[in-house]
């Protein structure tokens, strides 16, 4: 079970631009680092982060090993209509985490 922390306003005025910040617990092991036994620790990173607003993809980020451990991403979105924002992280070793947040638009 991955730990996810999302920070976004619960309500927004129609058409307002809101900031969404997302943090996820993940080692982001680069695959370039030797472990205690001298052997390279295999790469284990999150490759992709996407955000959808009511099912429409609004943001997509391809990550590399140069993204720090416990990846943090902040981006903006226009609050067109109230609904759900779905955040999705996918990566090595079959890593898939989804998180949904509700934003009400008045």
């Amino acid at each position: 079970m991955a730990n996810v922390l999302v920070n976004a306003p619960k309500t927004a005025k129609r058409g307002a631009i809101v900031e969404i910040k997302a943090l996820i617990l993940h080692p982001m092991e680069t695959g370039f680092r030797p472990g205690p036994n001298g052997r390279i620790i295999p790469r284990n990173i999150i490759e992709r982060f996407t955000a959808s607003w009511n099912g429409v993809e609004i943001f997509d980020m391809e990550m590399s090993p140069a993204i720090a451990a416990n990846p943090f991403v902040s981006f903006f979105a226009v609050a067109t209509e109230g609904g759900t924002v779905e955040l999705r992280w996918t990566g090595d070793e079959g890593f898939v985490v989804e998180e949904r947040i509700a934003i009400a638009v008045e």
Partner: protein
Amino acid sequence: MERRRFLAGTAAIVILPMGSASATPEAMAAAIAKVVGNAPVREGRVSLDLPPLVENGSTVPLVVSVDSPMTVADYVKAIHVFNEKNPQPNVFTARLGPRNGRAVVGTRIKLGDSQKLVAIAQTSDGQFWSASADVIVTLAACLEEAT
């Protein structure tokens, strides 16, 4: 002579693979060329904010903002960030659209050495704009003992 030549040979063998394990300014240029092709990249409209002096390269806050109205007619399609001296030249690629309202992306990155970073924004009409920043890193990422 024999022994000297042998030593010189082994030194070259030891040094070479380490050198190739790190991105170079040329590798960054190649990675940028892969994204922009032959299109001209102009400086401006993009701002790349990160601390000029970094104590710990393991987590470095970075914000890329692009001056764009972010309307259906004129928006930023993608933001790419590249580095010179990490093992790989790519840092991230973010794809945006008019639904974002503001062309601003923030994250935290790793830096293996003092180096130059480049951010490139691709607008909806196919133009490329860039900004670069030099960073001094006192403690590089990836050096801490893995446990």
